[in-house]
């Protein structure tokens, strides 16, 4: 097949070979797909969320299915940023993957320290800040719902690293544009949207709340309309800010819709559970679409009308 131009510029000097990435927490550390697909082909892979110290995560049950979606309360289980740098990054470099390190913390200081440890690490191409975490200094509401808190985190990280910074928006913010603007004003190179939306699952018969953590994050096709709307709003109001679209993307059609509402790239999440090759399939489909329509990935961005 012809090789259409799929390259996209996602800000901060980072050009991705194509706009199809995998979403944090849905693709492990990018090393679980040997024999399934070549990670170097993808636009990029976002690591499982990394914290300063390793975390075991929540007790079971951690997942529950819902209508066209699923809830997860993994509890951000991860090997810790140091083990990631030591053990995972070298293996990812060998595989020539474009790696976005997804990080989370409950204080501005810890975000800064995470950035410090990842700055200059060969093989890490960008940071994605997961701000859907309780802000311990401010009474436990998420960083992500508060423009000020988001701005402060972004600024601290900006002052610490030259890596491109993506801030991952929480769909629970009442005003996503205000949060995105705060990120932009404080040095973010892009925002990614959206993270999961908190939900709950209960067994009608017994009354048992399914997730040990009580609530979990809703993902999958069910949330796609919300993700499209938030990406569209942010792109329309802040066209200069690159947006990475996330939420319910399973097929090439989903990805194209996301580009059309203004995303410069997309992340495939829950769909990888249904089909480990989902991201590659979306990429193949996008290539075929661009060939058939004589277009490029860049040209699709923001074309919804």
């Amino acid at each position, binding site marked *: 097949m012809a090789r259409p131009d799929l390259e996209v510029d996602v800000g901060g000097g980072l050009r991705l070979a194509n706009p199809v990435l995998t979403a944090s927490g849905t693709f492990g550390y990018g090393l679980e797909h040997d024999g399934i697909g070549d990670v170097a082909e993808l636009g990029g892979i976002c690591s499982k969320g990394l914290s300063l110290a390793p975390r075991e995560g929540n*007790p*079971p049950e951690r997942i529950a299915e819902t209508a066209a979606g699923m809830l997860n309360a993994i509890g951000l289980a991860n090997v810790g940023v140091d083990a990631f740098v030591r053990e995972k990054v070298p293996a990812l470099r060998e595989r020539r993957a474009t790696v976005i390190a997804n990080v989370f913390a409950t204080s501005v200081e810890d975000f800064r320290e995470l950035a410090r440890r990842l700055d200059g690490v060969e093989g890490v191409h960008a940071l994605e800040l997961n701000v859907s975490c309780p802000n311990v200094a401010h009474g436990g509401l998420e960083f992500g719902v508060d423009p000020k808190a988001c701005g402060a985190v972004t600024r601290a990280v900006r002052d610490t690293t030259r890596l491109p910074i993506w801030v991952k928006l929480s769909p629970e913010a009442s005003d996503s544009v205000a949060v995105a603007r705060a990120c932009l004003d404080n040095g973010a190179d892009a925002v990614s949207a959206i993270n999961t939306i908190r939900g709950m699952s209960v067994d009608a018969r017994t009354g048992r709340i399914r997730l040990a953590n009580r609530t979990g994050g809703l993902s999958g096709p069910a949330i796609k309309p919300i993700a499209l709307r938030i990406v569209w709003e942010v792109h329309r109001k802040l066209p200069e800010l690159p947006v990475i679209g996330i939420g319910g993307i399973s097929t090439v059609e989903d990805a194209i819709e996301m580009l059309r509402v203004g995303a410069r790239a997309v992340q495939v999440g829950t769909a*990888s559970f249904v089909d480990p090759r989902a991201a590659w399939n979306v990429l193949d489909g996008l290539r075929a679409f661009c060939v058939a329509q004589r277009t490029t990935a860049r040209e699709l961005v923001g074309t919804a009308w």
Partner: protein
Amino acid sequence: MSPPRLVTMKVASNRRVGDAYRVIELDGDAGVVRSGQFAMLKGAWGVAPLLPRPMSWLAVEPRPSVLIKVVGEGTRLLAAAAPGDELTVLTPLGRAFADATEIGPATRSVIVAGGVGIAPLLWVAEELGGVGAERPLAVYGGRTRADLPLAERMAEITELWVTTEDGSAGTKGRVTEVLDAALDARPGAIVLTCGPTPMMAAVAQRAHAAGRRCIAALEAPMACGYGVCLGCVVPRAGGGFLYVCSDGPCVDAREIEWR
């Protein structure tokens, strides 16, 4: 372990077993698989149910097959698959019995099955027969006689003891009712078990009390089946968690914090 592949397989046959169970045979290649390994299955029903469902391989010869108990929407749809219908199958997945313990001519075993947990155990019994091991003693329990699918086949290849809670077949009670006697009848035997978690917990406790090793084929709700969602945990003895899809399903029962 060979990497999992997502393959599309056609349903070759779908036969009812007992009241509430189905054996579905598929046309296709399940990969290099051993007993205890599983697949993630999904039909062409789109986004609801969204996730594929984990099913132990019941056999791969002559055809890949699974035993299905209907408990919810996903298993209802799988059980309704007609010959010719296509399923997507991610396989092979997980650690086999043979990855958790040696399965050889010298293996003496007591097999303890609860309900649909029979699937991987029937196959491990066949594997044991294949390598010339001593005929296993199998204890197979269900609520009633209707909850003992494939008991006839099990009886052909093991010495089969049956228990039912209502006494409608075999000994009245649970598998634990006869487990100590079974362990006595097979001195030194390893215990291989699969069934509801409380049953496996009780079996492991008795086996350990009797100084036996016990290999359990675990269950947990799963999203991916191949180690990336981190959803399928069970508590590990001594703290932390095991991932059923990648550390298991077949694990030494001492590794688990049963509760």
